[in-house]
């Protein structure tokens, strides 16, 4: 009996050692990939940041209003943020490759999944950046045009234009990375429906007077400057 137990323990020990011996090279390889990946990612972060600084990317971000938004959100400067994104993408790529080497059945396919996700993530980021630039441009253009044309409530109008574009860009980005598609769609439908319903109720059922007073307050009559009546040259 004791002999049988000893044999079983010896066999288990032998199996463990054999498994460990078989696993160790993979573990070392994984660790090497992760460490080398980290070094490469660090190097790439430095290179990207240097290149962006040389191209005065922060000045561009400032011109487009991106810098102000990053500041409000307590995020690093535009060049540092972009370099950090590059770092994480590269390092996560190496990390998942390393994990794949271990051969765990449950973790297999991580690399393939990550590789499929990265392009979508990049496209989503591009959509966000372009959306932000477009929103900022449209905001400023609307504000300046409506101020100079003496249209009522220019800031309200231009702010609405900006948020509309930002929300649209955000929804498109979420759609691109396939995050909570149903929620995004439902949220849109609810928000849009609520807005339309609110307006319909305000103007339709009994609240016409209140709606008028609110609108008169929000959109007061603005007299023209009379600038067109002068010969400026």
């Amino acid at each position, binding site marked *: 009996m004791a002999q049988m137990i000893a044999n079983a323990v010896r066999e288990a020990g032998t199996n463990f050692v054999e498994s460990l011996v078989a696993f160790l090279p993979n573990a070392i390889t994984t660790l090497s990939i992760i460490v080398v990946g980290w070094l490469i990612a660090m190097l790439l972060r430095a290179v990207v940041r240097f290149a962006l600084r040389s191209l005065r990317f922060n000045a561009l971000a400032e*011109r487009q209003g991106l810098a102000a938004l990053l500041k409000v959100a307590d995020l690093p400067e535009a060049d540092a943020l972009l370099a950090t994104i590059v770092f994480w993408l590269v390092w996560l790529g190496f990390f998942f490759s390393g994990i794949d080497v271990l051969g765990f059945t449950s973790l297999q396919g991580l690399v393939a999944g990550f590789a499929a996700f990265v392009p979508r993530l990049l496209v989503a980021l591009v959509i966000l950046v372009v959306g932000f630039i477009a929103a900022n441009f449209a905001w400023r253009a609307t504000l300046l045009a409506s101020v100079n044309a003496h249209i009522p409530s220019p800031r309200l109008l231009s702010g609405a234009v900006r948020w509309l574009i930002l929300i649209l860009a955000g929804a498109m980005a979420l759609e691109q990375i396939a995050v909570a598609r149903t929620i995004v769609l439902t949220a849109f439908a609810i928000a849009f429906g609520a807005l339309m319903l609110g307006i319909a109720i305000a103007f339709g059922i009994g609240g016409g007077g209140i709606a008028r007073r609110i609108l008169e307050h929000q959109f007061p009559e603005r007299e023209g*400057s009379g*600038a*067109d*009546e002068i*010969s400026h040259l």
Partner: protein
Amino acid sequence: MVQDSLLSDELLQHLMAVGQVDVLVGVPTLNNATTVGGVVRAAHQAFGRYFPRDRTVLINSDGGSEDGTPAVVRDCAVDDQDTFTVSHTLRTVHRITTPYHGVAGKGNALRQILAAADLTQARAVVVLDADVSSVTPEWVAALIRPLREQQFDYVTPIYPRHPLDGPLVTQMIRPLIDAVYGWRIREPLAGEFGCSQRFVTHCLEQDVWLGPLARYGIDLWVTGTAFAGGFRCCQTPLGPRRSAGHTGLSFQELFQQVVGAAFECLEEHAAFWVPRAAAEPLPMVGELPAAGEDAPAVDAGRLTQAFCTDIEQLQPVLRSILSADTLDSLNALAHQDCERLRYPDDLWVSTVYEFLVAHHRGVMRRDHITQALIPLYLGRTGSFLTQWADRSPAEVDAALESLGLQFERSKPWLVERWGEGQR
């Protein structure tokens, strides 16, 4: 013969028939049928009265008028009795009307006229604005004489007018151009000018003709180029200028074009004006005309009211353009009694220079920068008109001179900030 490609075969044939000329008068047109006849007549009368022995030609470069302008130019009779009784030209009267091709705008028309002047080796060139109904033969003579008798290269006009007239010129463009270029010129935006063959060649060699300045800022560019190129420039008095005002532009569009062109010109000629230290008066040929008596009737209160309302709305944009000190001062102004707004000279100068620096650094789209300046300009104009409407022209002139000096005194600040933009 670089200019060959600018001139159509038909125009080349006409010019070869004309041969070399002494005086060339160019008239760029676009839908000026109501006024161009008077301009053409004045030019031909000038040929007869003042240059009867010279070889002359009038060239009309038309941008595709739909109101029959070229036909008016072609058929315009010069049977002015005065011309025949006083004197008439001893040479053939040449008159050419031709369409220009390419991008629409006065710049392209002017380029064609200058190319024709270069080809015909015109010794004196005069460009007249077809939109003006008060052109006389004496204008042409006045623009040519300094070129021929005193060897000036560029002659710019002075019109007699009330100092409160044309606030965009008097409040902004004139003092800015005077201070920055370092030449005190009365009418930097004049549509009429005279120039020498040397200046024509220089202009044609410049890389401006396909850009935005050629479309909407060529008059100012010509003036700036004459200064920056080191040409001998002078100004000469003409009669009152009455424009038919056929630009078809709203005030906002006009402001953007004029101020945008001024900022672009300063950008282009920075190498000339940055090291230039002091401003000096531009030589005058003739007597400075007396100021016009009729002050414009303007409701200045509406201008200042618009300033007070708009500056509040534009805060987020102005923060990117103006320094904190200037913006604080403007906000303080806007919170005072708008009917009695006083926009001081030094604050106005800081405003204009900071907008110019923002334009230079490209802190946002450049047309947005000029748009954001509109309410501030209206505030300054309203304030100045309110303050000086009841004063004599001499007093208003003194106030404008003081503003000009303020622009000149602050130029070192501009030069310093301009340099920072380069680094």
